[in-house]
């Protein structure tokens, strides 16, 4: 992998908040992926483990935006500017497919929704004591692997 390090002339001082975010997002995404794989591989004995995976993913994911917001420092209350453009005369949603940070923020949001729904599904299934519906299927796999890495 080429990283043109010679052109990063100033360090942005992303320290342990950001490291923590990558770690937790990775864990959460990884748990989700493994849970999905377990469910896809279709062995009913794996179902409890899959549900555990979805729970793990759901518990970890809210920590991520909290860490990211904490990292902003004094401007932390403007965290939502990542998603919404507040420039006067140019208001709307912010999405720049060419800026990895912008992409990452949206992936995080979408992944959180998936994680929440999956955990909810697992919980409902637990309560009823029957096998959960094959939630969201392969689509979510492809999607949240990228989410985990973003």
């Amino acid at each position, binding site marked *: 992998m080429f990283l043109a390090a010679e052109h990063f002339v100033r360090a942005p001082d992303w320290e342990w908040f950001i490291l923590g975010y990558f770690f937790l997002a990775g864990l959460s995404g990884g748990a989700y*992926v493994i849970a999905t794989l377990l469910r896809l591989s279709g062995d009913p004995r794996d179902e409890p483990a899959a549900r555990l995976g979805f729970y793990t993913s759901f518990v970890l994911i809210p920590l991520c935006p909290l860490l990211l917001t904490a990292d902003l420092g*004094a401007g932390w209350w403007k965290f939502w500017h990542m998603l919404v*453009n507040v420039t006067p005369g140019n208001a709307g949603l912010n999405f720049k497919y060419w*800026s*990895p940070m912008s992409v990452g923020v949206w992936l995080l949001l979408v992944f959180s929704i998936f994680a929440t729904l999956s955990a909810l599904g697992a919980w409902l299934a637990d309560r009823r004591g029957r096998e959960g519906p094959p939630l969201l299927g392969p689509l979510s796999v492809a999607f949240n692997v990228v989410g985990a890495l973003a």
Partner: protein
Amino acid sequence: MEIKAGESYGFFTDTSVCIGCKACEVACKEWNQLEGNEPAFLADSFDNTGQLDAQNWRHVKFYDRVPDRSTTSGNGTAFLMMSDVCKHCQHASCMEVCPTNAIIRTEFNTVFIQQDVCNGCRNCVAACPYSVIAINQKTGTAHKCTLCYDRLQGGLEPACAKACPTQSIQFGPLSQLQQTADARLEALHSQGVTQAQLYGRDDKVYGGLNAFFLLMDKPEAYGLPNAENAVLPSRNNIGGYAGAVITAVVGVVAGLVAFRRRRMA
């Protein structure tokens, strides 16, 4: 000079006449009410400003060229001096990455960070190839030269250009500055100063710089990326994303293989 919205403005910084007096730095700090540096002993010769950052929007760089042996009088350059500033790039790296769209292009075709929109994510700090931007910890936002946006709106030229005693810093409509620069380069070349060259005058670095320079040596000698190296941050995207996707696919395949093995066992 009348300053009109809709026209491109910039700086032409002619380093061949800079005397390193730092009047530009002081004028900038006064107008923009920037804090002073903490008094410190840097042992960096004349360069006690150090770098462009949240409180230094003009920085006179000093590059030591004192020759080992004495040269004939009037024939040696002791220092390369350059009043550095945000280049207000046509293809601005900082603007490209900013996820909040806090960085905008103004009606004067300059690059401006809206303080009320910026949330301090620091993406631009890493992106700017000239290390111009830094965070002010108190406001939690990114700061850099505004090309005196407020002064331009009021019809005044930027404070640094106004203060510069040698006209090393010239402000004006871009087309006019470019003519001035071409004439100056020609004059220097005809006097035998062949090392003089313009930086950012054409579109070879970042689509052209609104704040461009006349240098007395190669851009590398001033710590500036040359035309070959001047690339936008999105250059890393394809490689980075490809790496992520490959890792993901390998992970999933490995997972599937592991589960299958276990089932067969």
